[in-house]
């Protein structure tokens, strides 16, 4: 789960990391009011979960009221890589002389967190990692002990941060690690840490992603989640508790288990179709959940055909069949053709229950996917 910049900055400020003065606004008037309090220059920054906001036109600097109005009108309501901008952060412009990178993330390969510092901040750090990996100093952290103070100093000095700023950058890194640990973050980073013309060290941007599996112990952060969905379908999936990703194709896909659903997507592509979504109903789904899944996929206007691929382990074929019947029997006419493939636990019982007047049945994964792709092609014509 991604936090917005303004949400992360609130956490940073509360923990003692220096951030520029800022106000959140959702209207042009709100922006002008904020700017009148903060003064010029001011940065107007779109609050959406998208990387590279600046390049995409989501961040503008204003030095006059006219510019502020122009920026607010341009950014509020704009579409930024599929996200509509509803809120902007209006922030004091900073006169800086240098930009650094400071972050903590989980190193999957090592299975432990790693702290990273670079004096090449202000640009895409993944690009720096590719082109000049030595420019990023790293220090792995034993999660049982946390980041030792000496380690924080070491990584800052290794990165080549000048002595006069080292203490402040070290303090920011140590606080970032504390926030990373206490909030179950998966990543936390400041890019850039700015060195101002007054020699102050401040966090000019803030990225913080939270481990969704740990939200149960962070109810305050869980509350921030609802406005993080990209579209209505993803919000609906969140309410139903599905793992769901919307894609751009027209063959809807429902299955159980992440690996098998991904494979079903890949096979739709392999047989010449285009997947409309990833939808994993999870293990052990009961009939109502199956019906909800069909409802979700039907309500996606891009979907022309649906393939249901279930290989039961803990999921039972008879429950799935009941759910499909329930979902489809409410329609006078089935809105989109549905192909069903049931295998594994209670698949035979499921096949006996399944109302085959309403769905097409295929015995193998390959046949089911091919039929669904054909259906999609026919409907689309």
């Amino acid at each position, binding site marked *: 789960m991604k936090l917005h910049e303004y949400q992360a900055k609130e956490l940073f400020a509360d923990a003692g990391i220096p951030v520029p003065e800022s106000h959140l606004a959702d209207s042009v008037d709100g922006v002008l009011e904020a700017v009148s309090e903060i003064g010029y220059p001011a940065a107007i920054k779109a609050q959406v979960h998208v990387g590279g906001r600046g390049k995409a036109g989501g961040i503008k600097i204003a030095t006059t009221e006219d510019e502020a109005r122009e920026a607010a009108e341009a950014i509020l309501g704009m579409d930024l890589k599929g996200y509509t901008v509803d809120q902007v952060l209006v922030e004091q412009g900073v006169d800086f002389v240098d930009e650094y990178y400071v972050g903590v993330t989980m190193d999957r390969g090592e299975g432990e967190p790693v702290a990273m510092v670079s004096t090449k901040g202000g640009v895409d750090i993944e690009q720096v990692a590719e082109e000049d990996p030595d420019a990023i100093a790293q220090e792995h952290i*034993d999660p049982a002990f946390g980041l030792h103070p000496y380690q924080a100093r070491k990584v800052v000095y290794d990165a080549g941060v000048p002595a006069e700023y080292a203490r402040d950058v070290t303090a920011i890194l140590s606080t970032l690690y504390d926030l990373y640990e206490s909030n179950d973050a998966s990543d936390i980073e400041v890019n850039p840490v700015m060195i101002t013309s007054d020699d102050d060290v401040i966090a000019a941007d803030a990225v913080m992603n939270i*481990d969704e*599996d740990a939200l149960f112990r962070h109810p305050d952060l869980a509350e921030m989640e609802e406005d993080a969905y990209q579209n209505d379908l993803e919000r609906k999936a969140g309410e139903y508790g599905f*793992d769901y990703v919307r894609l751009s194709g027209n063959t809807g896909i429902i299955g*159980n288990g992440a690996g098998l*659903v991904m494979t079903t997507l890949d096979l739709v592509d392999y047989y010449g179709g285009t997947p409309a979504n990833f939808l994993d109903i999870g293990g052990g789904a009961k009939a109502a959940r199956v019906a909800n899944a069909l409802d979700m996929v039907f309500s996606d206007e891009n979907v022309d055909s649906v393939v249901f691929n279930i290989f039961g*382990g803990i999921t039972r074929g008879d429950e799935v069949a009941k759910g499909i019947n329930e979902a489809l029997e409410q329609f006078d006419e089935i809105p989109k053709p549905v192909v069903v493939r049931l295998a*594994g636990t209670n698949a035979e019982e499921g096949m006996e229950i399944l109302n085959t007047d309403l769905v097409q049945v295929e015995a193998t994964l390959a046949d089911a996917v091919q039929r669904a792709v054909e259906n999609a092609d026919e409907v689309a014509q």
Partner: protein
Amino acid sequence: MSIFVDDDTRVVVQGITGGEGKFHTGQMLDYGTNVVAGAVPGKGGQEVDGVPVYDTVDQAVEAEDANASVVFVPPAFAGDAIFEALDTDLELVVAITEGVPTQDMAKVNKRLGEVDTKLLGPNCPGIITPGEAKLGILPGNIFESGNVGLVSRSGTLTYQVVSNLTERGIGQTTAIGIGGDPIIGTSFVDALEAFEADTDTDAVVMCGEIGGEDEEQAAKFIAENMDTPVAGFIAGRTAPPGKRMGHAGAIVSGSGTGTAESKISALNDAGVPVGDTPEEVADAIEDFL
């Protein structure tokens, strides 16, 4: 022969009195697994399907001479349950639980380096040596005893590939689900190493997916250390970057690491054929045998 589990494996089920724990204990017993004890704090003295329950894993191991555990404990307590198992000198711990916080697993991972116990998972379907023992939630009826090893990050994809094998009369020595989380115990390399050492395993199927670099490391290991032929499958070719595809670990990062292309080409370079479909994986295995 087989790897990690056989009919001598004696199992304690952590969380045996919960819904899933109870149901799958029954399923494991039906399959013939030696489930000798359960462990649930506060439930010592009870029985589930005739299996005695103890308050701690230590007591269960002591009383029933168990050498493996299966964890069905809810995510909030699973990290602690795995620690308890690791501190009890078991040979194998199988963590089924999905949704264990990653930072809890980082701490577990650190501990794993200090003990001899193997961990499978978390967020895995478990392990089965057909006809001998099943630890976890895999549907026993689709497996058949034979000479092909299988290791996979995904549960239901394992079932799909196994059924493609079994339909052709190709049985399995052992099938292992290593789990779909970012930090897991046993890796592809650990499982491949064990299959390579197992004289009854004549070929191995490896089912990977997007995210991380475990498949690339496995490819390197295969090229340098394996004589047993391996066929592969990689799920997630059509996954967009930055989106978590169900499994917490199944995500292609914005910078393009963890892609299916990178994994497939690493495996191909190591001489491993990678099927476009599960059927093609079974074709490749049939060619090896």
